[in-house]
Structures are given as C-alpha cells and as structure tokens.
C-alpha cells in the first residue's frame, strides 16, 4: 500500500525538474522537453488523486486525458514553430530569439 503523498512528492519532484529545465536550457527543443516533463508531473498528481480520492468517478482520468491531448497539440505546434524559426534564423537557441530586445 503506497501512501498518496509519495505520488505527490514524485509529481512535485518531476515538476521542479521540469521547471529547472525550462529555465536553464538554451535549446528550444530541450525547453519543450522540459515542458513535457512538467505536464507529466501534473498528470501523475491527477491520476493519484483520482485513484485515492474518487476512484468511482472519472474526473481525474478525464482531465489526465485532456492534458495528454493538450501536450500532443503543444508539441506539434511548438516543434513546427521551432523548425520554421530554424529555417528563417538558422538557430534554435532561445536566447538568440530576442527581437523584442530593448
């Protein structure tokens, strides 16, 4: 019997790792990967709560599925953006994309 808090801790840790990746990686693709990590962390929490609090309902799973969907869409569009930026600016480094500077 695994306590709920273990799952929540796992989710929190995964989330923090994702945050770290988002803030500190230079490559846009890497940033995207980190975002996926964060989404997974969220999903873990959703499913854990579903299992432990309301297993007879389907709210947790349903929202997990929605997060899955959103992640898929986000990855598709994000990668498309990255590739088009790479085509136009020949770089996928997030720091180089500072057209709004000053």
């Amino acid at each position, binding site marked *: 019997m695994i306590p709920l808090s273990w799952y929540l801790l796992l989710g929190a840790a995964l989330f923090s790792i994702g945050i770290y990746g*988002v*803030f*500190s990686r230079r490559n846009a693709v890497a940033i995207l990967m980190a975002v996926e990590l964060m989404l997974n962390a969220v999903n873990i929490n959703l499913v854990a709560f579903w299992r432990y609090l309301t297993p007879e309902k389907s709210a947790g799973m349903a929202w997990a599925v929605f997060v899955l969907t959103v992640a898929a869409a986000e990855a598709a569009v994000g990668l498309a953006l990255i590739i088009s930026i790479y085509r136009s600016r020949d770089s996928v480094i997030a720091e180089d*994309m500072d057209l709004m*500077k000053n």
Partner: protein
Amino acid sequence: MTNETLTILTWLIPAGPLLAFFLIMLFTNRSRTLSWMIAWAGVFAALILGWIVALNTAAVGAHHLEEHPTVVASAFPWIPVGDFLKGTWINIGVAVDPLAAVMLIMVTFTVTMIFIYSVGYHNWSAPLGKILGVPNHLQEEPLLSRFFAFMSLFAGGMLLLVLADDLLLLFIGWEIMGFTSYSLIGFWYAREYHLGPDDIPHIPPYKASIKAFMTTRVADVVMLLGIVFFYFQFGTLNFNQAFTPENLSDVLDIIGPTAFGLMTLMLFAGTVGKSAQFPLHVWLPDAMEGPTPVSAVIHAAAMVSAGVYFLLRIFPLVAVASGPSGTDAVSFTIAGIGAFTALMAATIAIAQNDVKGVLAYSTISQLGFMVAAIGVGSYVAGAFHLITHGFFKALLFLASGSVIHGMEHGAHDVHDHHTDPQDMRNMGGLRKKLPITFWTFLIGGLALSGLPFITAGFWSKDEIFAEAWYLWDNDGFILALVVFVVLAIAAFLTAYYTARQISMTFLGKPRTPLAEHAHESNAFMTIPLILLAFFAVVAGWAGIPENFPVIGSMVNNHYVHHFVGSTIYKLMEELYALHLVKHPIENLPFNWEPLIASLVVALGGLFLGWWIYGRKPLETDQPDPVQRPLGPLYTFFNNKWYIDELYQRVFINPTTYLSEKVVYEAIDKKTIDGILHAIAKGFYGFGYYVKRFEEVVISGGVDWLKDGFLNISKEFRQLQTGRVQEYALISALIAVALIAVVLLINYGWLGQLFN
C-alpha cells in the same frame, strides 16, 4: 377535391414565382439557362395550380355560388394592432371567389405565355450600335437572370393581389408590382437616344421607369390614405367581413354619403394610377421603353388589370356610395374619368406611329371602357371586358414585339441602325415576311376592335353597351347615356386605328429595306402567339347572353354573367332590399340598340380604317393621309394632347423652381448658411486663443513630461532583454515568493511548520 387541399393549393399559387425570384436572385443568377428554367417552373406551377383552383371553383356551380361566393378562405393573424391581446390582429389571408377565379385563369395563362415568349425574345436582343447598355444584335441578353427574377417577382405580386382577401395584402402585391414595373421598365437602364428630327420622340428607359414609379406613387399615397380611412371606419380590411349589408349601412349612416363617397374615390385613385386613367395616364406610353414582354405583362395581363380588379373588389363600396342614399358624384367621377380616358386615348391612338405606342393608348382607352362600365354600375361587363382584353391585348403586344423583332433582324441584315424599327411608317408588307405574326396580330386586332359574333372583344364590349343602354333605357340614368355615346365613339375609333395599324404594318409592300429583310421569329415567340390567339377568340363565347337572337339560343347560357355575377349576387340582393344600391345583379333583357351600335362602330371603324390605309397602302415617306384633313387636330392628337407638356409646365417646372430658387438659394444658402457662417467665425476667433494656450501651456508641459519619461525609460529599457526564459524565471520567482509569504502567514513561523 377537399376544401383543405384547395386551400393549400391556393396558398401555393403565388409561392411558385416568389420562390423562383429568390432562387434566381440568390443562387442561379450566374447561369442564364438555369434562371429561365426556374422562372418557367414557377409560372407553370402557378398556371397549373391556378387553373385547378379556378376550375374547382367553377365546378361548384353558379346557384350554390350565389349563396356562398367565397370558395376558399384561409387566413392567419399577422400584425398585432391596437389592443392585440384582445385579438385585434390584421390577418393575412387568401380568398377565392368567382371573380378571383376568372382572374386566375386569365393572369396565370397570359403570364405563362409571356414567360415562354420572353426566352425567345431575349435570346436575340436589340440592334447593334444604336443603343448603349444593351447587348448587340444576335447576342444574348446579359441580364437575362435579372429579367426573369423580376418577372417572377412581378407574377408573384400579381397573384398575391388577385388572391388577397384583404386590402393590406392586396396593397402589398400592388406595391410589389409597382416596384418590379419600375425595375423592368428601366430594364435597359443604360439606353440613351440620339433622336433624329423625324424619329418618334421617346424618353430613355430609366427616365420612363422613374416617371411610371412617381406617377403611380401619387395615386398610391391617396389610395393608402383611403385604406386607412377604410380601416378606421370598418374596423377590418377583409372584404368579406367589411362588405356586409349591416356594415355598409352603418358606416354610411355614421359618416354620411359625402365622406363615404370621398373614401370610395380615394380608393379609386389607386385605380386611376395603376390603370392609367386620365390624369395619371402619362406614365403608360413611356413605359413602352421596357422590353416588349414587359409591356405585355404590365399593360395587358397584370398591372393595369390590377387597377380594374381592385375597383371590382371594392364594387359594393362604389355601388353603395353612388346608390340612392349615396351621392351621384361618385359614379359621375368614375364613369366620367373612364369615358373621357377612353375617348381621349382613342383619339391619341389614331395619330401614333410607334407600333407599340398605338397599343399603349388603345390599352388606356380599353381600361377607360372598363372603368366607365363599373362607374355606371355594370359589374359583370367590366369584369368580362377585363378578362377578354387581357387575352387579346397580351396577344397584340407580343405580336408587335415579334414584328419589332423581325424588323430588327432586317436592320441587322442591312446594317441600318438609324431607322427606327418600331416606326410603322418604316414597315409595310410584313404579311408575307411574318405570316404567323400577321395572322395572330389580325385575330388580336379584330378582337380588340370587336369584330361581331366571332371575337371575344365583341361580346365583352356588347355587354358594356347593353348594360349602359339598359340603365338609360330602364331608369333614365342620364350618365349611362353619355357613357354609352362616348364609348360608342371610342369603340369606333378603336376599330379605326386597329385597321390603320394592321394596314400600315402588314399590308402593301415594304417601305424600307428593314421591312424588306424582316423575317419570322422563332418558335419560342410564335407558339405563345397562337395559343393566345385561340383564347382571344374563344374567351368571349362564354359570355354570350342567352337571350341573344339565334346564337344565344344555341349557347343558351350567359355563363360569365352568372359565374362572375354570383360573386356579389347575394350581397347586392340584400343591399337592394335595403335600398342602398340602385339595382342588383340581374339579367338584362335583350335590346337591339346596343347591338346595332356595336355592329356599326366595329364594322364602320374597320372599314374606314381599311378604306384610308389598306385600300391604297402608303408609299415611302408619304405623310399620313388624315394629317391634312384633320389639320391642327392631328398634331394635337399626335402630341398626345400636350398633356406631358402641360404637366411639365404646371407641376414640374414650378416644383423645380421652388426647390432651386426658394428652398435652395433663399432659405438654405442665404439664411441658414449665413447663420452657420457667423457661428463658425465666432468659433474661429475663440479657437485661436485656445490654440495659443494649447501651444504654450499644454504641449509645453507634455513635452517636458515626455522628455522625463524618455530619460527614465532609457534606464528601464535595459530590463527588457527579450529573452522568454528570463521573463518566465522572474515571474515564477515572484510567484514562488508570494506563495511562500502566504504560506508563512498561514502557518505562522517556519519553526512550527513541521510539527
């Protein structure tokens, strides 16, 4: 057929053309073929349904109809008026009684014929070069879809008017026709004329359409006032509810004969405008600028008949208003206008040279016949002449269109685009060139001039004469005698100018190369002519009085009289019992005088016309034979009694002068603008000082402020690195910090967090 089915079918009659209009306008206006096919479908549906309904009505039988004239009556509440919670609604509804039935037969048939004809007519349109804005010869009409859309809308409006059971719906159909007639008369909107000296003077289509629209507006405003008056008095717009003996007598008692007559005349004004009676007839000849099918549908089948039909609809009102307890002014006005119009138009027609112009004026005069007949109180005769005239006048217009068409072909072949193909002086000898057109035109013309015993026109005119004579003979109604005489003269002239027209157009030998090279139109145009010719003859036989010598005993049933008469038979009986009308709908005894009169005028007129024009046909450029004998009278007729010029001087010039000089110059420019300029100057002065203040104080301060912000922003701009991650990090850190603060506040100090 059950009554419910009949009701549904009745509702569906106008639906077809209206639906066709929307379909063409919205979807198929790109495809010409699809458009006219849809239009055909609409009118054919209307034709079939209309005839089914009409024949079912006829099948009920006159005796039963006399008791219950309204076969189909269906209505539903439409507009809430006043205290509509109590259910005072204006209903929209249809009703079919014998009068509507005969109208349905005539209108649907002629309109369908005209639709068929239009396809053939428009596939080869007006000549090359002479006219702007219209397709070249042997080219297809570019706006065919629009044409058929408006024609369908027109047909729908007419059917709506015929089937309407109350004044409002009737007025709606009336106005729909008004608008569509405007847009159809001005169909070739880009036409401009460069008239030679000897050309027939005519104004371009767009002016003609505006003229028609404005003229009928004048009438319609009065008519609308009349409708309001009617509703105010009767409390309903429905004919069957309004025209009960009680209502009529009550209203007559309440408002008195004068006001009653006034109401009737206000409604009658609508007819004057729509049916082109004397003061307002000027729009109709110019309306000939539209394509010939439009002329046919406007001046024969639908629109002008609508006026008379409306007059027949409100006939009980007329009868009561001019009845024993009414005023004779009503009948004098109506019959007087009708008779005068008939005579005037006939006189004008004898001096016209435009083949369609002659027909236009003859239309006016025939409508005068009907109006006069109704004025003297002969209901059936008016209706009967309305129907027969619808048939043969549509025939005549279409045939004349075919003639013009042939002439234009000739014009194309000889490359002569300056001779007017509509001028009868340029025709002649077309009998060989256009055989079908000739024979059908001949039949129509004979019907118009009332060739005895065969044609429809004879029977309907004879009916009018008989009625008028009977009224004079029986109760010494002096007006009836006047009408009788005037109409007899008009009929004589009618026969005369018909013979003249046929002779000038078809007989003799061609006077111009155009006529030389003219040739017959295509089957689209000739087949409707033949069908219409059939009806132009046969339609009259339904109206042979049974007491007519020899023939009457053969037919032995005055069918139209009983059928149409049964519409208001019962009502008139009751009104007669109340001494509100002079006499009910009754069978006339046979009299020799009207018969002899109509025989004489018809045959005499025809013979005279033939004697002058047909016996030795005109040569090229030979002036009109009657020009010299008639002298100034001829020019007077030829210039249409100078009525247009009169209106120009009396109405239009003063109006323009008023608006130009008084309103624009004096009031607007001088007075109002003066005041405004004064105010403007004042504000200029004020504004100058405001400007100074603004320059010195405000903008100065703003500049100072701006510089300050500029300097500050120079410093702060460094913060904006344009890196997403930095922004995200900063915002996240701030959020984390906030959360931390909240938590610390919630949980007290860190010390007691983990216990």
